[in-house]
């Protein structure tokens, strides 16, 4: 590896700078900045309406911010949208596939849209990899929740992107499917990919994220490694008031920082 490549490996794969998003006059995101390094699983955590989805939509280029910038793999998402998106793998909250297409056809379609043209053997290998070889000719709508998520995760990485965005990927999954998905996300990191994940499960964030950002009312209020955040706030009064177990958890820190009020 030469010096230039080493240098590139150190540069962030995602840089979000001073993002500001408003809907009519309501501020959804106000001055959000963060970065994600290579090989890092980064969790964006926040209560409902905190600004997670708006931030994610701006990163995907689906929403144009009023100000600020998003740079994916060196490409500005608004000025070089197609290049930036080509370096991005996306799994949305709903699996969002055409319900009348078969599993095999979905893989071929989304690979093709990223300029990857798969042979039948390559599709078969992918299906085996996600344990859906028997479901190849089933429609996406006929798959179970866990199978749909495995398919969606696989589709998001068909073009080998350096950054993968996962929007609440384990919502509604049983514990077995959830653990299996965690393994797959960690395996993606081990292959050198970076992952940005949003989740309401603090257990999940603690289990797989190297760093998390806690966002509320459109602002990032804390960023850091989950264990370091627990250590930092373990004696905080509000955090201790949120404790339900003998030890402080990431969820206690989260509730301590964002409050007990239920969001809608």
């Amino acid at each position, binding site marked *: 590896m030469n010096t*230039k*490549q080493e*240098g*590139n*490996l150190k*540069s962030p*794969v995602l840089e979000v700078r001073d993002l500001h998003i408003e809907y009519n006059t309501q501020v959804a995101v106000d001055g959000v900045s963060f970065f994600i390094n290579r090989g890092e699983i980064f969790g964006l955590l926040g209560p409902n309406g905190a600004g997670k*989805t708006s931030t994610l939509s701006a990163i*995907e*280029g*689906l929403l144009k911010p009023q100000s600020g910038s998003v740079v994916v*793999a*060196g*490409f500005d998402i608004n000025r070089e*949208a*197609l*290049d930036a*998106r*080509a*370096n*991005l793998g*996306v799994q*949305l*909250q*709903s699996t*969002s*596939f*055409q*319900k*009348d*297409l078969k599993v095999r*056809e979905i893989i071929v*379609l*989304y690979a*093709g*849209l*990223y*300029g*990857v043209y798969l042979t039948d053997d390559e599709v078969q290998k992918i299906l085996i990899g996600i344990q859906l070889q028997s479901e190849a000719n089933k429609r996406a709508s006929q798959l179970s929740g866990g199978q749909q998520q495995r398919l969606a995760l696989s589709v998001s990485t068909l*073009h080998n*992107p*350096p950054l993968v965005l996962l929007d609440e990927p384990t919502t509604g999954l049983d514990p077995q499917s959830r653990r299996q998905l965690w393994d797959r996300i960690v395996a993606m990191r081990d292959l050198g990919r970076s992952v940005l994940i949003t989740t309401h499960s603090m257990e999940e964030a603690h289990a797989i994220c190297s760093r998390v950002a806690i966002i509320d009312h459109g602002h990032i209020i804390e960023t850091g490694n989950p264990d370091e955040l627990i250590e930092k706030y373990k004696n905080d009064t509000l955090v201790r008031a949120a404790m339900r177990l003998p030890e402080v958890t990431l969820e206690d820190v989260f509730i301590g920082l964002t409050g007990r009020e239920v969001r809608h």
Partner: protein
Amino acid sequence: MQTSTQETFIKKIPSPIEAFKILLRADFTVQLRQRRSLLMSLITPIIFLLAWKSLIPEIGAASVLSICVAIGLPGTGLMGYSNTLANDRERGIFQRLRASPIPTWVIMLSRIIVQLSVLILMALVTCGVAYFADGITFGFGNLLLILVASAIGGLAFLALGQAIVALMRSSDAINATTRLLYMVIAVVGGLGQTGLFGAVLQKIVTYSPLGTSKTMIVAAMNPASIFTWPVMFAVVITLAYGLFFAIIGIRFFKWTVN
């Protein structure tokens, strides 16, 4: 000029034409698998055609066939297209497609081409039934002109469908609105041209998208009349309707319901 980060990460982007071909294949596959919707698009004008067979001696074969084909246009262009768009938007399919490195026009053009193909198929099948079951005769050249007229009229209804989806968010509301609109177009538009509801309504219907489509189809069966001013006026008005609704449909269209 590329930065060093870009050099490391640069990925292949498919050409818009390649992406269009891939998406078009998928959209056609989806359309063919939605058999019930396809069947409804094809069968509605045929029902009108068979029911109105007795009107042929009174208003003429060209009028009956043109009204029936014209009534089929909003069935597909308005109801089928707008409901598919609304449902796919609600399910996040457009959001997923937009997150991929393809221009947005590729996504929409693919949908429009598929619906336009269904419209042309509908016109072809209706003409076939008219020829063999109702004994309405026309030459191959007339048939081609009918298909072109149907495509022009169909584009106006597709644009209207796009405008409705642009102005409304809920798929239920869109479904209800397009059904109601279709009923009005089919009943008032279809019968209004016969003069059944009076001269004023007849005039209004004549210059509605259904009326201008009918005028173009009648002219297709009698090519000598194509370059007369009422027919050219009908073509211009239909294109104007299409342009007007398309501007609304593009300007106000939202890719997500959130």
